[in-house]
């Protein structure tokens, strides 16, 4: 077992990595996902003392569930608990600050999405990660069975060289009261309060003071698919956004529905449609499809498959009728992360890739506001 906090490239393969969970205020899929792998062990939860009570409450709850201490001092926890990995799952606006601090302390980092709400923050992370020579994994879904299947099919040459890729990514979740449901004179919905409330059903991906539209909250997932399946950077975008479904989005001037035209390297074209479309609009978690056109054919992939259908009397209306199967995404991501630490290789979605995705998202937001094409910087 690695006993120091310095980067452990070429470390002992099979060694256990002790992890500090730096804030876990959203639904805890990231730290749980990390802990599902036998080489990663949760050692402590930590956060800054200055955080509000609701943050401490959630951190403490997660710590208690996992029988590990909660320390209200990030740097102290890192010093005292002999950790090699930081898992960052705070509000989005604190992601990068915590990641930079972790990198400066010599920790490898697994960070929840989105990378940040600001490109400048992403740049800080890239700099800190590379300067400290630590590994960084942006949490993603690229190892879902359907996405792997798509990659294998493309790599086999079955459709030739990809020239166009389209991801339709709709989450059929509600996010508070529907748009237009308020009464005249109602105050705007407070974004943070709405997100705190959403924690109960796990739809608090946008938790934080800064309102975020779906491009920022979820855009990383489909953009990571596109990146993995084409290997191409997005160079220019044209986007349309709107708050179509939810009053909270309308009140806070952030979209819950977006369409993006993508112009990529090697003349590859693409599109992204993304939205939080409401629970009534799909029998399951949502319609998520990948379409790829190549020089020799086309590929249509449902991200949800394989799945099994389950129906029964008095079934709760919001229960998914189809249950996904054979999902090994968490373990495969952590396999990838462990391999990167062991060998010095890059992770499947490193800091630079996360930054590129953040820049694509920001360009799309800017394009929608201006009505113009925007270069990704």
């Amino acid at each position, binding site marked *: 077992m690695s006993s120091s906090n310095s980067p452990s490239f070429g470390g002992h393969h099979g060694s256990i990595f002790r992890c500090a969970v730096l804030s876990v205020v959203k639904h805890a899929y990231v730290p749980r996902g990390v802990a599902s792998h036998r080489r990663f062990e949760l050692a402590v939860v930590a956060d800054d003392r200055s955080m509000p009570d609701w943050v401490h409450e959630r951190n403490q709850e997660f710590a208690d569930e996992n029988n590990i201490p909660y320390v209200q001092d990030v740097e102290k926890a890192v010093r005292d608990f002999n950790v090699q990995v930081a898992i960052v799952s705070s509000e989005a606006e604190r992601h990068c600050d915590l990641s930079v601090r972790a990198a400066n302390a010599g920790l490898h980092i697994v960070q929840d999405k989105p990378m940040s709400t600001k490109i400048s923050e992403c740049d800080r992370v890239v700099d800190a990660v590379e300067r400290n020579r630590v590994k960084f994994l942006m949490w993603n879904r690229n190892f879902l069975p359907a996405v792997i299947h798509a990659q294998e099919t493309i790599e086999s040459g079955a459709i030739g060289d990809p*020239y*166009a890729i*389209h991801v*339709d990514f*709709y989450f*059929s979740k509600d996010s508070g009261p*529907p*748009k237009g449901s308020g009464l005249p004179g109602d105050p705007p919905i407070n974004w943070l309060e709405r997100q705190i409330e959403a924690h109960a059903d796990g739809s608090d991906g946008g938790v934080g003071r800064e309102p975020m539209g779906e491009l920022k909250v979820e855009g990383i997932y489909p953009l990571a698919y596109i990146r993995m399946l084409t290997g191409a950077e997005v160079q220019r975008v*044209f986007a*349309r956004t*709107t*708050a*179509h*479904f939810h009053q909270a989005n309308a009140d806070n001037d952030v979209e819950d*529905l977006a*369409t993006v*035209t993508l*112009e990529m390297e090697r*003349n590859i*074209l693409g*599109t992204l*449609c993304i*939205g939080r*479309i*409401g629970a*009534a*609009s*799909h029998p399951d978690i949502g*319609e998520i*499809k990948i*379409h790829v*056109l190549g*020089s*020799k*054919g*086309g590929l*249509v992939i*449902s991200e949800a498959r394989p799945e099994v259908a389950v129906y029964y009397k008095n079934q709760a209306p919001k229960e998914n009728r189809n249950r996904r199967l054979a999902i090994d995404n968490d373990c495969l991501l952590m396999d990838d992360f462990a391999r990167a630490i062991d060998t010095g290789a890059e992770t499947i979605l490193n800091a630079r890739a996360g930054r590129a995705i953040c820049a694509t998202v920001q360009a799309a937001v800017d394009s929608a506001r201006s*009505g*113009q*094409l925007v270069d990704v910087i």
Partner: protein
Amino acid sequence: MIRLALIGNHRSEYNEYAVSRLHEACFVAIADCECERATASAKIVGASIIADSIEELLVKHANEFDAVVIRNTKNSHLVASSAADAGKHVLIESSLASSTELADEVIEKCRAANVRLMVGHSQRFLPAVATIKSVLDSGVLGAPGLLRIHHWESSDSNNRLARHRVSSEMDLAIWLFAEPPSQIYALVRGHVATAVESSDYLQVHLGFPDGGMALIDYAATLPHGAGYYSISMIGSTGATYGDDHHNMQLLYGGGEPTALKTAQGCGHLLAQLQEFVDSIVQNRDPAITGADGRLAIQVAQAIDLSISSGRAVHRNGERYELV
């Protein structure tokens, strides 16, 4: 009984099914420059008159038919104009014309002759599309937010990317949103300056005035065989999905199974034809008017402008302009 003359290549479009189910109309004439094809079509639909052009039909049989159904002919707008001049009602199944100016000519001819003009965007009558429209109109989906269409065909299909295909997809978007797009950005595969007609891949991004949007990708690059079609409409309170992926059957013949596409049949062509006939009988505007056809052409021209300029196009009053 409305007597119909089929003008152009109609082979395989109408069959015994259509003939037996068409109300208050019958097929009496075929005008097709390919004699063998014309004879075959006439036999299928029971037409007794065969000619090689609309001109011959009008010279020799002017009083023996009431309406023309024009498809896949060169200069179809001229055919339509000739028919209107002769007092014949017109269903034009290809794009109304190649430009808004020519479309205006046809519309004016039909108006002056007091004949019905219907533009045949038959996609509207496909069962899946008609269902989506019906559900949308019922209000249960709320305000339309996002229309997504993937339309892929083989590279040897008869419908290689051309203006009529683009205008049909645009007609669908305009129909479902009930207004023309306010913003258009389009791309073709390969080179920015390539015109729509010579490309095999087109990607169109539309914005509508109330925040609605549409993304349509059309490709004619699949290998020989079946195509793929997927349409979804996301509304503020519900959504509909009409998707070939969902509607596949499986064939096990050794190795990996083959997906067999389920068909929607040819009822949509009959439905379109019946609507044309009914509009004549009932003396009303058809479901798809000349103005509808013109608007789709205008949007297709705006797509050309976006492609050639590499920029987005915005609607300003009744026109589309670069921003």
